[in-house]
């Protein structure tokens, strides 16, 4: 046995040598034979003819001798050649099967690769599963003194670091550039476990009060600014006109939450420079990342943090009363954020599509095997062993699946790059997405298993016992086979129903979102962001900047009107404050939380006119509202409804809350107008209460938006130039139209809607093709019966009904199951739908109706052909 195996192996390896040796051996034989015949007195020609005849032909003998060696390899090769020929001979089957395979493998691989990269693959930090993200209750930013206390008290955390996303202006180039920065505590990189690419990262020595100002930069930044990581070390860079020494460069691709090019220190002596950060009431966008002690889980860490937060609430009631919650989740969960539901839905949809594709492939193969049963039965009858039949089918379908797998991988890569192209830019870990080979192999294996299972099944059922029955009946389709196919078809219709429901809900969501009145006119609005914070600007300089900038913006050709604001609608605002109303006493013992609150938006004159926000009562801001004039405010309808329901707010005075409820902050402001509600935080969000104030009365902010209403399109460079005309040191960035901003804000839903709809259409088509095939097959099979029926007087209506009924039962059961599944799966869509419940009966009904219509059409077409059967011909044909 072993010797034989060895010989086979040797035969494989030395194939050519063995071939030539066989040739030599046979030629030697022939020459000896010819010699013998010559000695017997024959002519050379006759001798050769005789020798060749006795040998049975040189070629044949050589072939049959060679066949003895390397038996199975040759057989598989033969099967391959035969299989390729079979596939080529039935191009329609091959193309359909390939399409189904490629569709399934490609889409699944692409979507799952995204889902895997974003949801599953561990974050690129050391022991990333021990990292947690922390914020105050409801995910709000942490007040610096609170973070400081957390750091000292928490024992379940090995380390706790703070980070604050910010931006700095590089003031070395010809035009100032704004770059994203992250201010971090000295232990930040230690907690993440990050290692420097060059130089060193922050450590405790940088946190000493006497330490020099240091910076860590990204790899990309070091290359861009200094031509390489080593060259960056020790360089002095001016960020917002302050000098920093670069001490380290991070590895390429390093990133925490948001991309940043510069990392600066956030420690007490630095915090002192951040206005208001020492206040326990000031919740800026400071967040924390912690590393759990070994063996401590998230739940117990959260329990400890709750205790600490509760203790702080008691110690500092003025600012912390009522702040008893804490937000502590695994970092991976935070990174993925609200992308998880979208991705889960997409992955679910694509899994269903793969299922449909496999089911269709299975039913396609079953169909085909039924028509090939005859061929297989003949082969079995003339002595083909069962194993050789199975091998033949395995090879044939392996060929098909192999081709499908390769094409699927290529198409998957293409879909993936297209997906990354249309993905929302804030998709977490977008840069980590690549075609995943684990995912690819799993989907490929799945389709292979499916193809092989359904492809080889018929060979298993054709055993020695029944091939003569198949031969006699002339057709291979057994009853068992057709029941299986009907089951598959029901599944297909059900899956199509689920996908169609999802897509229907998403399409409705998009329609309803587009009908929401944003409260302003979003068309022809051009914006740029800029930093009106030229260091060293005096208050007078600042005061002068805004009116001048607004004036220049309005002078740009094509601009109708323009304004400046600290926060734009849809994008939201991050300044939320408490306020008091003059004449309304503050109850004794009240804390900040008990005061009314609203979003604060400083805007220039002409803001409401530019955005076309209606002024409901009173006046809007004008150029006479300056730092020297009476402090004024304009409030929106929502605020009126919440706090001034029974009185006229015009003329009332309000004041921002200080660090205690009884303290005020800033001047008393007189309410001079009421404006309409605007969807400040996004089209799908409730309108917040808002207080607008003149920008000249509240000039400090690091970023502002210039917004211009244009006739047609105006080049954003013209708008940037208008600002640079006022001051070249002001960095301008991020030019957009408001429509673009709105599109970006809804891009997740749009991607979900598009992908779900495409998948749903594909699923419905697949189901329709499947149904068409089954009914058509059924008609073919029963031609003779139809002939008999018609000969006996059946009308074509009766024949039609016979076949429609068959299809209808399948469709009804499939849709029923699908609707049940859709209702059960509705919860997964809840986070994405808007303005419609995930179990919307109208959608379910519409889906059922549409699917019924499509599938009935799909079975009507072949059924109608049944009525055209000519009885005499049908009866004669067999």
């Amino acid at each position: 046995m072993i010797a034989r195996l060895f010989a086979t192996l040797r035969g494989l390896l030395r194939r050519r040598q063995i071939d030539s040796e066989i040739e030599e051996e046979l030629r030697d034989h022939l020459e000896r034979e010819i010699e013998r015949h010559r000695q017997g007195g024959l002519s050379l020609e006759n001798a050769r003819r005789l020798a060749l005849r006795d040998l049975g032909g040189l070629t044949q003998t050589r072939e049959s001798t060679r066949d003895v060696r390397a038996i199975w390899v040759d057989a598989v090769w033969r099967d391959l050649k035969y299989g390729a020929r079979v596939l080529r001979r039935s191009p329609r089957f091959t193309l359909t099967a390939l399409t189904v395979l490629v569709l399934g493998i490609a889409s699944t691989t692409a979507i799952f690769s995204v889902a895997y990269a974003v949801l599953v693959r561990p974050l690129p930090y050391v022991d990333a599963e021990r990292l947690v993200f922390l914020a105050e209750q409801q995910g709000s930013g942490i007040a610096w003194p609170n973070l400081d206390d957390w750091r000292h008290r928490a024992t379940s955390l090995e380390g706790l670091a703070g980070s604050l996303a910010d931006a700095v202006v590089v003031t070395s180039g010809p035009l100032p550039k704004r770059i994203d920065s992250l201010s971090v505590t000295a232990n930040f990189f230690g907690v993440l476990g990050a290692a420097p690419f060059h130089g060193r990262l922050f450590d405790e020595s940088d946190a000493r009060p006497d330490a020099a100002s240091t910076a860590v930069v990204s790899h990309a930044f070091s290359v861009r600014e200094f031509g390489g990581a080593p060259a960056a070390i020790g360089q002095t860079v001016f960020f917002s006109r302050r000098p920093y020494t670069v001490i380290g460069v991070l590895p390429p691709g390093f990133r925490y939450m948001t991309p940043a090019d510069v990392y600066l220190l956030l420690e007490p002596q630095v915090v002192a420079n951040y206005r208001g950060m020492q206040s326990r009431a000031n919740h800026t966008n400071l967040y924390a990342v912690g590393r759990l002690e070994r063996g401590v889980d998230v739940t117990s860490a959260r329990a400890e943090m709750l205790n600490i937060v509760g203790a702080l609430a008691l110690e500092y009631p003025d600012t912390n009363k009522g702040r008893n919650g804490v937000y502590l989740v695994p970092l991976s969960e935070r990174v993925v954020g609200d992308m998880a539901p979208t991705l889960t839905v997409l992955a679910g949809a694509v899994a269903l599509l793969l299922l449909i594709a496999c089911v269709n492939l299975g039913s396609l193969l079953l169909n085909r095997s039924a028509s090939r049963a005859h061929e297989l039965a003949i082969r079995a009858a003339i002595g083909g062993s069962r194993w050789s039949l199975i091998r033949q089918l395995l090879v044939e379908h392996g060929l098909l699946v192999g081709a499908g797998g390769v094409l699927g991988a290529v198409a998957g890569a293409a879909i993936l790059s297209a997906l990354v192209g249309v993905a929302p830019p804030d998709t977490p870990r977008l840069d980590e997405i690549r075609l995943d080979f684990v995912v690819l192999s799993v989907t490929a294996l799945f389709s292979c298993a499916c193809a092989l299972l359904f492809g080889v099944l018929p060979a298993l059922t054709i055993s020695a016992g029944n091939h003569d029955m198949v031969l006699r009946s002339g057709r291979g389709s057994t009853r068992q086979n057709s029941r299986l196919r009907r089951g598959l078809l029901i599944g297909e219709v059900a899956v199509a129903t689920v996908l169609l429901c999802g897509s229907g809900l998403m399409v409705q969501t998009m329609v309803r979102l587009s009908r929401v009145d944003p409260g302003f006119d979003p068309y022809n609005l051009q914006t740029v962001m800029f930093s009106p914070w030229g260091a060293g600007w005096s208050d007078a300089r600042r005061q002068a900047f805004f009116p001048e900038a607004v004036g220049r913006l309005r002078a740009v050709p094509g601009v109708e009107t323009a304004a400046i604001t600290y926060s734009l609608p849809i994008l939201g605002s991050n300044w939320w404050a408490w306020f008091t109303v003059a004449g309304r006493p503050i109850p004794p013992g009240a804390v900040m939380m008990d005061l009314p609150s609203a979003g604060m938006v400083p805007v220039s004159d002409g803001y409401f006119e530019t955005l076309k926000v209606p002024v409901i009562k009173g006046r809007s801001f004008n150029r006479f509202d300056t730092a020297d004039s009476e402090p004024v405010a304009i409030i929106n309808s929502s605020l009126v409804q919440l706090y001034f329901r029974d009185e006229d707010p015009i003329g009332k005075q309000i004041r921002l809350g200080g660090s205690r409820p009884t303290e005020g902050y800033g001047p008393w402001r007189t309410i001079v107008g009421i404006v309409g509600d605007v969807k400040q935080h996004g089209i799908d969000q409730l309108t917040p209460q808002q207080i607008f104030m003149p920008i000249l009365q509240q000039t400090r902010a690091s970023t502002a938006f210039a917004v211009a209403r244009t006739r047609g399109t105006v080049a954003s460079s013209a708008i940037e130039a208008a600002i640079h005309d006022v001051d070249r040191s002001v960095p301008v960035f991020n030019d957009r139209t408001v429509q673009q901003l709105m599109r970006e804000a809804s891009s997740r839903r749009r991607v979900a809607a598009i992908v779900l709809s495409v998948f749903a259409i594909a699923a419905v088509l697949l189901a329709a093709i499947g149904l068409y095939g089954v009914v058509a097959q059924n008609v073919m099979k029963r031609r003779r019966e139809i002939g008999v029926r018609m000969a006996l007087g059946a009308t074509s209506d009766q024949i039609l009904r016979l076949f429609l009924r068959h299809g209808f039962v399948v469709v009804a059961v499939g849709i029923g199951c699908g609707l049940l599944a859709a209702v059960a799966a509705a919860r997964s869509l809840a986070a994405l739908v808007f303005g419609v419940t995930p179990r919307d009966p109208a959608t379910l009904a519409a889906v059922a109706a549409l699917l019924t219509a499509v599938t009935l059409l799909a079975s009507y077409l072949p059924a109608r052909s049944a009525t055209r059967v000519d009885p005499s011909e049908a009866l004669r044909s067999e």
Partner: protein
Amino acid sequence: MNKTQLLQGTLDLLILRILDLGPNHGWGISNRLQQISKDGLKTSQGSLYPALHRLEMRGEVRSEMTPSENNRRARVYTITPQGRKRLTKETETWEAFALSMRRVLRVDR
């Protein structure tokens, strides 16, 4: 039984028997077969070579390309111990079979 239609097992047996007399090449085996059986068991030479290679795959003979006269090389086959074992066993089986056949045929007469 038609004399050209030898059962495969029988051909194997005959080849082993001839090689038992000494190493030989294909043409030699074919000639010896005819001589021994007095031309009564003429094999198709076409089936001789696959049979030889099959026997080699089974390890019952081994072969070697050896130089022969006229600048040629011939493949010379040698019986292996395993082949000899099979020869002994199948010869016994064959004789037992032939014996029973004879008995039956005699009874029938």
